[in-house]
């Protein structure tokens, strides 16, 4: 009776193998891959994505036989997945995202230096603030600039935006009543601290590229934001991160908020009578200066030679004035192409004009990979100052020490 057993068991194995073989058959048929198919992994907000799909449709209509596939990711996943896939020899041809992702990706040799890849003179078309050089090369072709924080206000509550720190504080105090706060801002993220740091004449890196976090400017900036957040001033809610600030502003329970152009569409959709203004002048008499950055396309090292021309052509299309202007007008972002930057569609639009002015006040966010470390070490210090468990001076000292230690660890 035992004879039949191995047969039965092998039967079972055969069944399972069959299962595995059949499973891929369930998948839809693969479309042809070749020079005609370009895959792009991108980080875009929903509205931006919808616009981009329209640009893709326009491009495909003009180039029959070419298929563009856009795969959306969020910022962190985009970088991680691309890192994994490209290092493993696969991944997409193009990656679109914030300018600072070129830092790690270029060091890991996963993207191509575009100044050598794109045709000669390609980069002359962009406004200078849009281009970031790292280790002597350009790594991304930007199609928009911005990411700058501004003062967004609810026109129902704030007829004229405050111009300086005194006006700001007075106005915010007056508006704080009946469950409405005068001001809300994401105080957990150092990106929101950066404008104040720059306003007090500080910066995250010194001229020699080393982190410069333990400075009087950092102490002043931390002190100023802590003052706004403090119970004594009373113009902000006790716990205030991005989501809460946004919720309050959308519900008319915060009169002013500091946020970037990406947020406007949602505010308008939510029924807020939105006004925007550059950040106010700080007590030291200088404007708070937001960080500015671009978003752009980088080309993977894994793109084979025969496909490169098709990829370059698509990138050229995406950074053309036509494509950029369509995006700018629909999304409220600023174009990176000189012609589009100066186009009447932008300069005659009141919101975009203010945004442009605020942008020109900003400082370019460094794209070196150490920037990630700096963000990371600033976050704890900032949060400790905000919940009152540490003084600005101690926090600044701690940030600097942590930055030096982490950067050393990263370079081991």
């Amino acid at each position, binding site marked *: *009776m*035992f004879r*039949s*057993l191995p047969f*039965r*068991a092998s039967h*079972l194995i055969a*069944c*399972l193998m069959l*299962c*595995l*073989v059949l*499973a*891929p058959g*369930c*998948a*839809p048929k*693969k479309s042809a891959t070749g020079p005609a198919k370009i*895959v792009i*992994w991108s*980080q*875009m*907000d*929903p*509205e*931006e*994505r919808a616009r981009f799909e329209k640009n893709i449709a326009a491009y495909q209509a003009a180039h029959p036989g070419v298929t563009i*596939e856009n*795969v*959306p*990711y*969020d*910022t962190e*996943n985009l970088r991680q*997945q691309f890192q*994994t*896939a490209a*290092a*493993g*020899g*696969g*991944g*997409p041809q193009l990656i679109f995202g914030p300018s600072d992702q070129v830092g790690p990706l270029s060091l890991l040799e996963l993207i191509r230096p575009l100044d050598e890849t794109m045709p000669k003179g390609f980069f002359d078309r962009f406004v200078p603030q849009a281009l970031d050089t790292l280790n002597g090369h350009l790594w991304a072709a930007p199609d928009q600039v911005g990411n700058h924080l501004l003062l967004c206000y609810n026109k129902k509550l704030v007829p004229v935006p405050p111009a300086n720190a005194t006006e700001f504080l007075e106005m915010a105090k007056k508006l704080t009543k009946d*469950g409405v706060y005068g001001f809300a801002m994401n105080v957990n993220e150092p990106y929101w601290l950066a404008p104040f740091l720059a306003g007090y004449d500080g910066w995250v890196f010194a001229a020699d590229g080393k982190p410069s976090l333990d400075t009087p400017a950092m102490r002043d900036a931390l002190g100023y934001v802590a003052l706004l957040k403090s119970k004594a001033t009373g113009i902000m809610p006790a716990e205030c991160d*991005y*989501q*809460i600030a*946004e*919720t*309050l502003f*959308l*519900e008319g329970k915060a009169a002013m908020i500091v946020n*970037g152009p*990406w*947020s406007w*569409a*949602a505010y308008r*959709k*939510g*029924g807020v009578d939105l006004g925007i203004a550059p950040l106010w002048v700080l007590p030291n008499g200088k404007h708070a200066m937001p960080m500015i950055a671009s978003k752009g396309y980088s080309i993977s090292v894994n793109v084979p030679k025969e496909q490169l021309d098709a990829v370059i052509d698509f990138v050229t299309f995406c950074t053309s004035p036509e494509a950029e202007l369509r995006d700018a007008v629909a999304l409220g972002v600023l174009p990176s192409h000189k012609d589009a930057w100066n186009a009447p569609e932008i300069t005659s639009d009141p919101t975009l004009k203010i945004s442009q002015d605020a942008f020109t006040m900003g400082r370019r966010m460094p794209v070196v990979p150490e920037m990630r470390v700096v963000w990371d070490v600033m976050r704890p210090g900032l949060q400790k100052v905000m919940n009152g468990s540490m003084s600005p001076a101690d926090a600044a000292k701690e940030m600097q020490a942590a930055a030096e230690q982490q950067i050393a660890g990263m370079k081991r």
Partner: protein
Amino acid sequence: MKKNDQAWTPGRVFVQVFLILFALATVYPILQIVTISLRPSDQLYSTSLAIIPAGASLRAYQTMLFQKPFLLWMRNSLIVSLCVTMLGVTLASTAAYAFSRYRFAGRSAGLYLFLMTQMFPATMLMLPLYVLMKNLHLLDTFAGLVVAYTATALPFCVWTMRGYYDTIPYELEQAALIDGCTPWQAFVKVTLPLAAPALSITALFSFMAAWSEFLVARIVISRQELYTLPLGLESLAGQFQTEWANYAAGSLLVCVPVMAMFIALNRNIVSGLSVGGVKG
């Protein structure tokens, strides 16, 4: 069940009330997700505690079902999850039977081996997993996902099945063997039916392991036609702006098949309270 006819003693009332309150508290966070899904603006949080938000609308559900490729994601997820369930239950019930009923060289090492695969933090396994899948040409295939998920589900399934087999007396199988059954027949015809509750648990677990997973799915799948539900939902999220209403609606819709599966298996999981066969 005869006990249901008993009188409402104070203890029984207390238990009943406790269970109802606990269940309500458990469901409360999910009601919050319902609220998010009904909100007309894409707002994750609110300062109001109202369950039905101002201007509530079902538009997010309509969007998810008819404008987004939600049904495609659902189909993909169902294919993957059901394959994992079948494969997981088959492989686990056989392997666990060997561990429970036989002594053989490498038995305890084998048992540990299954557990050991769960001990390594997943973060660091992603890059090599990608390379592996790429070399086996399993990237962007459901087969790749099914194999990976089965491997994640198996340790639990094997150990649980083995634990359950251990509670079933040998005598029935021995009798069957004496009656002329092969060991395989004794397993399939005698033991397996008695293990129905454990089979249901492993089935539910395998299904869930595949249904809600997205770290591995992210690595294996990058073509949108092949997105499973977690990947599809994740694609609704942006850096700062996320389609929260759609996201919440989608998450709730994702629950529906799981609940259906649970209710279907529920009977198996709890039916055996009077376990007739085992007494013998």
